């Protein structure tokens, strides 16, 4: 066989149940690099399907992928294309998003993986049906926004040198920050309580930092909650109130997402030891 000759590889976005809703939304989707999106049926009656498109094999072989991953622009383009497909499918039916850049040599190889994972996929599809994900991020606001600059205490009346004044100012700032952290803890407890009352599950992401995080405020909680669609409003109302009386704390809500953070079944084939 001449596997070296293939120009295209099969990029798989999601697992879903076959049906008109899925077929229609897939037909309306454009995938990575604008490629048309297609269905790869599984083997057997009622088997779940893959939603896939063709990508340049050249762009997605191991060496190329390794290189591309250092290119944030490339990564963003693929991530947004992937997400656009998932969102469109998710508006029509229950979808199980796959990890970014799940690529097969061809559709037959993809189908083998689909068939091998059928039981696990069906289980997850059942779990996620009718659910959405909400992202909840809690921030401690950067000091100069959390509160007006601490009033120059009586100590910094005329006569106190700039060094002393600076130190006392720093101390005051730090104590504002400490109390903001405590307040963030309170917000987190309230949101967790709302989660226990309304959510099906919770997942934790690493807190966001750095340039991409795009905020001077300190992200202290970055969680995702899985909610039945009919419970979202009640949960969000609680969350919206969580930091009302907590100065220096900000709660950001993102969503609704297709439940990416909960589509994390253990790999069906691999009987790896050790729960994570």
């Amino acid at each position, binding site marked *: 066989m001449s596997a070296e000759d293939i120009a295209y590889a099969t990029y798989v976005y999601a697992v879903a149940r076959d049906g008109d809703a899925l077929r229609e939304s897939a037909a309306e989707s454009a995938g990575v690099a604008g490629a048309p999106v297609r269905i790869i049926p599984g083997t057997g009656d009622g088997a779940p399907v893959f939603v896939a498109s063709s990508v340049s094999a050249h762009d997605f072989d*191991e060496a190329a992928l*390794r290189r591309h991953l250092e290119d944030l622009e490339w990564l963003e383009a693929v991530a947004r294309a992937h997400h656009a497909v998932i969102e*469109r499918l998710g508006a029509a039916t229950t979808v199980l998003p796959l*990890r*970014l850049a799940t690529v097969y040599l061809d559709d037959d190889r993809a189908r083998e993986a689909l068939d091998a994972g059928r039981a696990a996929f069906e289980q997850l599809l059942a779990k996620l049906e009718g659910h959405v994900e909400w992202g909840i991020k809690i921030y401690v606001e950067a000091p100069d926004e959390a509160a007006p600059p601490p009033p120059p205490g009586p100590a910094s009346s005329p006569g106190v040198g700039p060094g002393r004044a600076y130190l006392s100012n720093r101390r005051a700032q730090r104590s504002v920050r400490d109390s903001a952290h405590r307040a963030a803890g309170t917000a987190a407890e309230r949101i967790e309580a709302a989660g226990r009352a309304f959510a099906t599950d919770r997942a934790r992401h690493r807190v966001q930092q750095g340039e991409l995080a795009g905020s001077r405020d300190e992200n202290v909680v970055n969680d995702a909650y899985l909610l039945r669609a009919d419970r979202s409003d009640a949960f969000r109302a609680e969350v919206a109130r969580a930091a009302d009386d907590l100065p220096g704390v900000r709660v950001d809500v993102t969503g609704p997402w297709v439940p990416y953070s909960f*589509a994390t079944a253990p790999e069906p084939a691999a009987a790896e030891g050790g729960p994570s």
Partner: protein
Amino acid sequence: MTEPAAPAERDPLPQRQVALIDLLDRLLSGGVVITGDVLLSIADIDLVRVSLRALVVSVDAQTRPLWARTLPEGDPNAR
């Protein structure tokens, strides 16, 4: 400076521009992991962290090492 993140939109349709970092949280650590033919699966997220670490945390000099945490320098196979 805070732009208190625009209230999450209700519109579930595509084309809602989400923040890249929120998307990467989900696409690189969420989603079902199955083994593809390309061996370098992004399931091996450590590799992505290696690649992106400079970009993601470059501004934050005294990083609390969350991207760095699981990566012994340069070893994509490290757990």
